[in-house]
C-alpha cells in the first residue's frame, strides 16, 4: 500500500478536525441533551427535531446552506466579518463549524439516552445530601452517564472523519487547510489515480471498522457491568 506525503497530510488534518469537532460537540451537546432529557416544555419536540435534522438532510443541502450562510452576504458571514474574522468558507474553522452541525445528532442522542436512563433518582438523592446542582451534575450525573459520553465522543469523531459532502461544498480543497481524507480520495478517484485511491480508502475502511468494533465491545462490557452491578 502506497500513501503519498499529501495523503498523510490529509490524514493528519482529518484527525485534527475530528478532535476539535468532538471536543466542541461534547461541550455543546451536554447542556442540550440534559435539557432534552428533563424538560416538559412544548419546545422539546421542535428542538429534538432540529437537532436530528442533519441525520436526514443530504450533506449537499447542509453544505449549500452553509456556503450561502458563510458568504459575505449570509448571516454567519456578516457576523464573522463584524467580529473581524473575515469569512469562514475555505478555512479550517469553517470546516469545524460545518462538522459540528453535521455531527450534532451523533453527540446529542447518546447523551439524551444516557441521561434518561439515569432517571431523576440519583439527582434527587444528591440534592437531599445538600449537593449543589453543579456539584451533583459533575459528581453524580457525569460518572453515571459515562457510557453515553464515550459513545457520543466516538460517534462524533468517527462521523466527522467520514464527512464528505459538507467539506466538498465549503472546503475548496486547500492542502493542509481543508483537504481531508474523504475529499483526497474523491480527488484520486476523479483523476483516475485508482491505486492511490485504494490505499487511502483501505485506511478509512479499517479505521471505521475498528471504531465500530470498539463501540460494540464497549457497549457489551458496560451492559455486563450493569448486570453485575444490579
Amino acid at each position, binding site marked *: 500500500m502506497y500513501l503519498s506525503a499529501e495523503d498523510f497530510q490529509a490524514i493528519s488534518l482529518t484527525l485534527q478536525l475530528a478532535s476539535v469537532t468532538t471536543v466542541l460537540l461534547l461541550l455543546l451537546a451536554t447542556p442540550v441533551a440534559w435539557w432534552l432529557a428533563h424538560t416538559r416544555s412544548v419546545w422539546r419536540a421542535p428542538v429534538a427535531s432540529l437537532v436530528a435534522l442533519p441525520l436526514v438532510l443530504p450533506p449537499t443541502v447542509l453544505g449549500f446552506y452553509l456556503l450561502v450562510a458563510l*458568504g459575505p452576504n*449570509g448571516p454567519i458571514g456578516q457576523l464573522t466579518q463584524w467580529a473581524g474574522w473575515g469569512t469562514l468558507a475555505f478555512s479550517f474553522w469553517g470546516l469545524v463549524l460545518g462538522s459540528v452541525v453535521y455531527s450534532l445528532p451523533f453527540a446529542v442522542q447518546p447523551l439524551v439516552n444516557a441521561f434518561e436512563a439515569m432517571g431523576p433518582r440519583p439527582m434527587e438523592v444528591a440534592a437531599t445530601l445538600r449537593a449543589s446542582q453543579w456539584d451533583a451534575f459533575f459528581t453524580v450525573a457525569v460518572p453515571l452517564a459515562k457510557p453515553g459520553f464515550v459513545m457520543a465522543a466516538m460517534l462524533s469523531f468517527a462521523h466527522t472523519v467520514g464527512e464528505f459532502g459538507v467539506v*466538498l461544498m465549503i472546503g*475548496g480543497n486547500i492542502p493542509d487547510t481543508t483537504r481531508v481524507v474523504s475529499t483526497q480520495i474523491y480527488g484520486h478517484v476523479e483523476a483516475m489515480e485508482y491505486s492511490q485511491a485504494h490505499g487511502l480508502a483501505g485506511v478509512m475502511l479499517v479505521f471505521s471498522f475498528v471504531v465500530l468494533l470498539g463501540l460494540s465491545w464497549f457497549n457489551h462490557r458496560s451492559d455486563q457491568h450493569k448486570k453485575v452491578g444490579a
Partner: protein
Amino acid sequence: MTLRLLLALAVSLSGALAQAGEVTVAVAANFTAPMQKIAQAFEQDTGHKAQLAFGATGKFYAQIKNGAPFAVLLAADDETPARLEKEDLAVAGTRFTYATGRLALWSKSLNLVDDKGEVLRSNSFYKIAIADPKLAPYGAAAMEVIHKLGVQANVIPKLVQGESIGQTFQFVNTENAQLGFVALSQISIDGRITQGSAWVVPQSMHTPLKQDALLLNAGKGNAAATALLTYLQGERARAIMRAYGYL
C-alpha cells in the same frame, strides 16, 4: 366506427413511437445551459428525446468504464474521449470536437475585474476560485494563464479549488471567493456578461479547450444517438453554442 378509428390511431402512434427514439447523454457540467436548449431543439426537429445527465467528465469516465448505460458522451476535454476509444469502450471513428470552450475571469463585483486581468497582480481579493486543475480542463487552463501572466506568487496562496467548473461558479456566485476562473458559458448569454465584471481570457493564453463528443458502446445501433451526434454539428445547434460563447 369508433373502434376502427381507435385502432388506426393506435397503429399510427406505435409507428411514431418506433421512429422517435431516446438517447441518454452524459454532458460535461460546463455545457449544461447550452445542452438543455439544444436538447429541446433536437426534440422539436427530430422527434427524438435526449435524456441528459450533467457532471464531471472524470466521474463519467469511471461510470462508463463500470457499465453506465450512457449512449453519448459530451466531454469537457478531448483526452477522456480518446482514452475511451482506445480502451474499446466507445465506437471507433465517431469522435469529434463539438465545441471549444472559452475561459473567463469573473467577479460578482462590478468593478473588480479589468479587461486585461491586471486584478491578479493586486491585493483587492482574498480568495480566487479555479476548478481543480487535476480534474477539470478549465482548471488546467486557468493555471496556464496564471503562469503566463507570472502572477503565481500573488495568486497561488489565495487559490481555492472547486471539484468541477460548476462548483467553482458557485464559490464565486456566493461571493465566498471574490473572483474566479469560470467557463464563459456560465456567465454570458448572447455575447453579454449577465452580471458583475469579467475578463474573457484570450485563446492564445492557454491550450484550446477542445471538447469532444463520441458514441459509446451502449449507443451502438441507437438511431437517436447517431442523430444527436449529427445534430450537434448542424446550424441550429452551432448557433446555440455561439450564443453561449463557445467557438
